[in-house]
């Protein structure tokens, strides 16, 4: 069933390619149907898995692929991957609906997004390092093509920067994976095996180097300061749907890799160097927020808040590495980190889609040229306000649940560095609140700007794409239990694995 979930979009893409000259509506129908079917399948999977998971792997498939190097087609889901799979399926479906009015090279666009959906789902389901890497690398190629062909502005340059930077990250990651492979006895790429018997236990130096390679590779993808410089241009010049996928799904690959690979496979090294993720997490939180505060370009601003939000996740994972304190608090931090991944996907995905609406009408992201949007486009203004409040962590929305758990977990863990870092990072929330309120003041309220007249309200496809994302964010904010119940067994397992 999981294999079907992963490859259904790819099959739809191949079908689209096989038909000679399909009509515009047919392409869209196939695209939306495929993503909707996939979303339904993931939902069914979650329903069968139940919300009170045991932390064990379900829907497992383990087929031989390259047995001579110990790599297999090994996929499965647990409480960590299920929410991210659901997020992926939902965001891709939202992007398909959002693109209903798109006309430029629609078949290639749909094929590429379906391909990317397979790649992203495959990555979150992979239980083999090599398989994980294959999907990791393919996601870069797919997103490069999206930015290059459907972007705007200085897209060729941004796309190239994105490709080179993240490709470098992926190769560093690959070197780290090979380090794990060579450190395991017998040599294997299988994640379950590597978690059961952590490699490189006897040689802390090599384990540290391997963690450095894996950590750097994933940090570039996440991205954390100082590896974030590819992100703002890539987001600014990507099409709205591309930005939503890039921020909503693909940034999670980095932090997911930290939880899935780095922490359980190199527990010793993670504990020893826990101050590094703590420090870069804190740096990302503050730097991302401060730089976002200074942006005039709305999409760049949202991009920098991504750096800020991903920083909380890395900080929480670093705090979970201080094994001395209270285990329950560390579990809370990891749960918060995973919740933040889901929350950031929903909220930032919808923010980028809303940026796309603005660009579609006014051909500009410049905050100074808009104003008083609430009068002419009330629904748009309301959605933007909800998304902004969700992003700054207002109680009742998903961001609050995530960040609250991260702070509580990190401060309550009983280790001074983690507590101090978390306390300082609360400043980040303050700055984000200030910058989003500033956005609302300038663009949504206030005097009309020169482009305000062009901004008509959201159309039905745009509404249908954004509302479910924000509704889910609200649902998680009001009733987080089903999500948290799914995640908690896994975060308990991860914390136990790191502490061994």
């Amino acid at each position, binding site marked *: 069933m999981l294999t079907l979930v992963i490859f259904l979009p790819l099959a739809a893409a191949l079908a689209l390619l096989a038909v000679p000259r399909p009509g515009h509506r047919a392409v869209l129908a196939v695209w939306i149907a495929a993503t909707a079917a996939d979303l339904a399948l993931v939902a069914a999977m979650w329903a069968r898995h139940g919300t009170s998971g045991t932390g064990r792997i379900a829907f497992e498939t383990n087929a031989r692929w390259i047995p001579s190097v110990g790599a297999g087609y090994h996929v499965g889901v647990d409480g960590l991957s299920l929410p991210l799979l659901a997020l992926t399926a939902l965001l891709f479906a939202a992007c398909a609906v959002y693109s209903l009015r798109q006309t430029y090279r629609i078949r290639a666009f749909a094929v590429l997004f379906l391909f990317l959906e397979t790649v992203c789902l495959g990555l979150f389901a992979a239980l083999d390092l090599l398989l994980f890497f294959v999907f990791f690398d393919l996601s870069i190629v797919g997103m490069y093509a999206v930015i*290059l062909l459907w972007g705007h502005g200085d897209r060729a340059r941004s796309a190239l920067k994105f*490709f080179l930077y993240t490709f*470098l990250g992926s190769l560093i990651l690959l070197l780290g994976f090979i380090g794990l492979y060579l450190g395991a006895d017998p040599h294997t790429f299988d994640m379950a095996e590597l978690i059961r018997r952590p490699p490189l236990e006897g040689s802390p130096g090599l384990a540290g180097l391997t963690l450095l390679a894996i950590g750097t590779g994933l940090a570039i993808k996440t991205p954390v300061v100082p590896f974030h410089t590819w992100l703002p241009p890539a987001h600014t010049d990507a099409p709205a749907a591309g930005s939503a996928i890039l921020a909503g799904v693909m940034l999670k690959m980095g932090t997911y890799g930290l939880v899935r690979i780095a922490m359980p496979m190199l527990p010793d090294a993670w504990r020893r160097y826990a101050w590094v993720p703590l420090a870069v997490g804190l740096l990302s939180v503050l730097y991302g927020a401060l730089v976002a505060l200074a942006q005039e370009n709305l999409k760049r601003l949202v991009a920098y808040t991504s750096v800020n939000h991903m920083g909380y996740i890395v900080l929480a994972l670093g705090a979970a590495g201080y094994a001395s304190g209270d285990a329950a608090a560390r579990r809370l931090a990891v749960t918060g980190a995973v919740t933040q991944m889901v929350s950031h996907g929903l909220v930032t995905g919808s923010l980028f889609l809303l940026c796309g609406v603005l660009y579609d009408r006014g051909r500009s992201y410049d905050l100074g040229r808009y104003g008083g949007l609430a009068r002419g486009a009330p629904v748009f203004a309301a959605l933007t306000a909800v998304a902004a409040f969700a992003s700054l962590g207002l109680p009742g929305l998903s961001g609050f649940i995530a960040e609250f758990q991260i702070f509580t977990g990190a401060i309550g863990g009983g280790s001074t560095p983690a507590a101090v870092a978390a306390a300082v990072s609360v400043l980040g929330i303050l700055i984000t609140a200030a910058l989003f309120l500033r956005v609302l003041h300038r663009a949504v309220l206030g005097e009309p700007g020169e482009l305000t007249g062009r901004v008509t309200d959201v159309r039905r496809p745009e509404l249908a794409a954004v509302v479910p994302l924000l509704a889910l964010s609200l649902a998680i904010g009001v009733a987080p239990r089903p999500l948290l119940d799914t995640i908690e067994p896994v975060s308990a397992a991860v914390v136990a694995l790191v502490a061994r």
Partner: protein
Amino acid sequence: MNENPADLAPELCVLLAAVLGLLAGMFLPRAGQWRVAAVCAAGLAAALAVALVAATRPGLMAFDAFTVDPVTHVTRIAVFGTTLPVVVLAAGRMRGHPRESEFSVLILLAALGTVLLGASSDLLVLVAAYLLASIPAYALAGFGKDGPGTEAALKYYLMGAFLGVLMLAGVTLLYGVGRGTSYAALRDGLGAAPGAAVAVGTVALLAGLLFKAGAVPGHYWVPDVAEGAPPVVAAFVTTVPKIGAFAALFRIGAEVLPPGAFAWAPLVALVAAVTMTLGNLAAFAQDNVRRLLAYSTVGQAGYLLVPVAMAGRAALAEPALLYYVAAYAVTNLGAFAVVVAVGRDDLAGYTGLLRASPALGTSLVVCLLGLVGTPPTAVFVGKLLMFGAALEGHYAWLAALAAANSVASVFYYLRWIVPAFGGPAAPLRPARSALVVAVALAAVSLALGIGSGLVLAT
């Protein structure tokens, strides 16, 4: 001593086809010369089939001069498997050419020399194989009898002759101090020999093989031949002879030098580092796709030298080399086949290729991304094993340098891929046979990547 000619059946098939082709070419009328190409293709196909069957049997030694082991099997399959599409490519382009039959025969002889290069386990046979692989290639480089072709052939020849003489001197020296020319005898004899003599002899021997491999310092001919020779020849000489050269280099490291006799790994690692860096940097500014591919093959030669340096140090070195060299040959030839099909040498000629001919455009994208090392193509698996071999042999700096070079290489491959995506499509009438070859090679490159488990298992 095993003297069963059947052990060399694939080579004999090719030799027979070449001789038959040459004889038939003398008597056939101009319009019927295509039959020579057909004979040559049939010979290669037969050789490939026999080689595949032979690969399932245990290893052995034939005539005390040829080792038939996994290295030889892969060399045979890769050489014959890539020479066959070259003959098909040439058959389309050379139709009606005054020297049509000679072309196919020369290609076959060069391929035969390449296989012997990889299979030989005796330095004298190695020298003979070097000459057999080189001399037809010189003639092929100048086949067009035009200015650039002549210059390329002359450069190729002078370089090859000079480095070949050096190689012969190295063989003489090793024979003198090692009291034998067979690899087994040398391994016993070189241990007690004076270190300086062994070092000088090995370095001189390397010179010839690095020339065939297109690696620094024997790489100067690569861009000129790739640009000046006829495109099919460029595709052949930048792809096929390397397979045998790398197999031979690997054997020198693994089978000739006794452990500790010579600083093999540091020297070859240094050559690899310089080769990959130089090839990739030089490829940056090229606007001619054939020169670009030429420098890319120099860069790839650098990656291929990594497992050669790790010969005898890392268990992954042998699978890494064999898989990478086969994957590289298929992928590089695929890219050249697209160039032959499109018939344009400037980057601008590829604008809108994906719209003008989706099949050809997709093949180009697959082959170039394959050369970058993007999964799931075959070169990715080769590169993965190469990184693994370097780390296993404790050459982490070499792995890191190879990774940095891979990233740099993305830059110039993208310069070629990006125009293919967009822009108005130029009218294009691709040669049919070249189109089929390009698509087939791209498909094989993908299949070898996804199905690598099956291939590596055998």
